[in-house]
């Protein structure tokens, strides 16, 4: 038997059981719209790729990471002793940050293409839930090295839920595993990061991808004005898939470049009794809400606890409005509502960028 015939027999055997030919035929018939904004279609795939990189590097880190009292020492060993440990840790951290960036680009591109409209509401809602989970992934992962910066930043971050009336302190205590950030907190965050969050994230991601598959790529309003028979498209298989994979390879190169040239730093071991060092700040994707809360706290009549509560309420309201946009701007005929949603999106970008810039500008 030649290699070709062996391969054909294996394919037939698998095909008979899994129906690969049908799937391939389906993929060949599936098309992806081509227009001036097609570039934005790749960002969901890039986010997925970066998530997969984190899964892979996360498992490798898991081999050497020891949560609890030895957390810092184990990360120190990974970064400065293990062969290529620094590379795996850098790739993991950079992939997380690049994924947050690509997810945000993906979310805004979906928003401005109005891809949340009927029948894609669940796609939007599941996407928002994935963004929320990704943020918690980031927050919980940030503490795990237990260096000075991550310790104090987490300490500050966990002060925010304390301001929630009635239940706030209990929630914060539950997350911390006590009244302060300690090795118990790391243990909890570790469990959250490697078990709870993946258990929630992966099925939700599968649901999100299923919806993308079911409804296909939405076209932007400008494209909707063109009659369907005059719109351009390319087959998903192999044309779009090939380009999508090329974007993955480019993302891999960007990731490798960042991880190699700017390896992820590890600060000094935390000292709970030491004063917080200067320049404590959250990760860039939390800088905007952090700065918004800070700015509201500076308003005279909102100082103190009431300012924090007002800040949390305002922020929650903003996120709720953003999440529920498909139910407000639900139809392509909704001209006025569509325009308001568009301006709301622009306002959100402006607020995010401005508060993030102010946050970095005023780091002390």
């Amino acid at each position: 038997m030649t290699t070709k015939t062996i391969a054909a027999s294996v394919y037939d055997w698998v095909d008979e059981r899994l129906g690969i030919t049908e799937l391939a035929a389906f993929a060949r018939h599936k098309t992806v719209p081509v227009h001036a904004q097609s570039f934005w279609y790749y960002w969901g795939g890039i986010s997925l790729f970066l998530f997969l990189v984190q899964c892979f590097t996360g498992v490798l880190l898991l081999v050497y990471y020891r949560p609890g009292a030895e957390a810092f020492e184990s990360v120190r060993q990974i970064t400065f002793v293990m062969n290529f440990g620094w590379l795996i840790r850098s790739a993991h951290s950079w992939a997380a940050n690049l994924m947050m960036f690509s997810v945000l680009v993906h979310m805004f591109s979906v928003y401005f293409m109005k891809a949340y409209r009927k029948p894609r509401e669940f796609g939007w809602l599941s996407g928002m839930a994935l963004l929320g989970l990704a943020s918690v992934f980031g927050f919980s992962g940030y503490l795990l090295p237990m260096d000075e910066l991550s310790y104090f930043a987490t300490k500050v971050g966990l002060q925010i839920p304390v301001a929630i009336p009635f239940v706030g302190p209990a929630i914060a205590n539950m997350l911390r595993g006590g009244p302060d950030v300690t090795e118990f907190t790391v243990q909890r965050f570790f469990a959250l990061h490697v078990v709870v969050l993946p258990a929630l994230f992966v099925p939700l991601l599968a649901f999100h991808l299923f919806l993308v598959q079911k409804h296909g790529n939405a076209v932007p309003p400008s494209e909707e004005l063109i009659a369907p028979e005059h719109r351009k498209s390319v087959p998903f298989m192999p044309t779009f898939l090939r380009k999508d994979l090329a974007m993955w390879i480019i993302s891999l190169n960007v990731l490798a470049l960042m991880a190699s040239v700017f390896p992820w730093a590890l600060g000094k071991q935390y000292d709970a009794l030491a004063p917080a060092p200067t320049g404590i700040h959250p990760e860039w994707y939390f800088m905007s809400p952090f700065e918004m809360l800070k700015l509201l706290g500076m308003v005279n009549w909102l100082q103190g606890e009431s300012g924090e509560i007002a800040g949390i309420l305002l922020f929650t309201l903003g996120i709720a409005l953003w999440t529920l946009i498909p139910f407000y701007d639900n139809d392509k005929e909704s001209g006025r509502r569509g325009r308001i949603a568009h301006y709301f999106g622009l306002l959100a970008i402006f607020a995010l960028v401005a508060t993030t810039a102010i946050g970095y500008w005023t780091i002390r």
Partner: protein
Amino acid sequence: MNYPFWDIPYLGSGWVIGIIAIFHVMISQFAVGGGLYLPLAERKAMREGRSDWLQELVGYSRFFLLLTGVFGTISGVGIWFAIGLTHPEGTSTLIHNFVFGWAIEWVFFMVELSTAAVYYYTWNRIDPKLHLTVGWVYAGASVATLVIINGILTFMLTPGDTWLAVAGTGHEASKFWNAFFNPTYWPSLMLRTCVCCSLAGIWALISASRIDGGTLPQLKSSLVKWSTRWLIPSFVAMPFLFAWYLAMVPASQRALLRLGIDTAGAGTFSTITRIALIIIITSATIIGVAYYLAYRNPVEFNLAHAVAILMLALMATGAGEYSREMLRKPFVIGRWMYSNGVRVPYAAKIDQQGYLAHSEWVWNGSGTSYSRGEAIFRGECGSCHTLEGYRPLTSLLAGRDRANIESFITMLHEYKADSPYHRFMPPMVGTRQDVNDLTDYLNAHVNPAAAVGLKTVQTAQK
């Protein structure tokens, strides 16, 4: 030592050479590879009667002439200026040893420039066979420039025992050929030839990607596919050539590549390993992207794809040149001259007589002179470090008090074989007084508050 110091704050002198060199290498290696690509493509077009190819080649040769003849020559001369100013001691040694080689290179360079212009301006004006001959003359001249400069570049890494035996005697040029055909000459020449061919293919893809695949599918398809094939030598031979090259590099230098395997700590010279990793991933990506996007789908191959491959090639070239430069540490000329311009056999003498006693240009002639510490910093540290910027000493020494900085410099001064810095940093040469002066200068920058009121010792006037 014999020349003035050119202080470049923030960027550092190494990057002045680096930025110009990486830009130049991208173009000069294209000049060599493209020199082979053009006559071979022309010959193929003539044999197969492809007039559409010939028409494309006219446009491509104009692009080639402009890029290599203008940007290549300007950046080439720029390297001369840059190395002369930033590393005069090393440049001086190269000139004394290779003046004959450079003279030959300039002859070929003039032939190269002239024939490139003649080649472009005589399309459809002279007999096609004669035109093709002009192309071959260009190809021969451009390959000759590579053959020569490769000898000089590889000499800096591995000058060879024969040349080292006469180094410093005034008879260095008598061992010209030994220095030229040094241990890494052949693997490096093969490697660079492969890179030249790849760059020829990649730049040709830029040109071919702009052909309208809708109206000229056959032309685009054939040119894109043929250009992609120019990457095959690299794909097949590079891993073996790299292995050969590394086998010829002294074990002490090869060991540098391992420094960054287990750590990413600052000041551990781990950068070289990290940058070397970039060569691997970008090279693999170029092959993958070129195969899937260009070779398998030539008609849909567009300018954005071609630019992406070119950018990857730029990254690979930059990383490769950076690694090659770093592989020489702690020398600029292997075992003969340290990276700060101090000749290895002179170190003991300088330790006895003092660094500034051998520095002819430290006094600037005006009423205010350098402090001794600053002059020593510029001479001994400035080749690789800045105060604030690239490899900044204020950051690398942060957290150390004066005593700690002094013990660190003393460690570099003693240069014991088991010192971790022995592998990639030159010794700090000079007297005890020099160590103190350098310590004072660095301490004043690392701990400004502690250094207030410190009276700096000025350099002696000459």
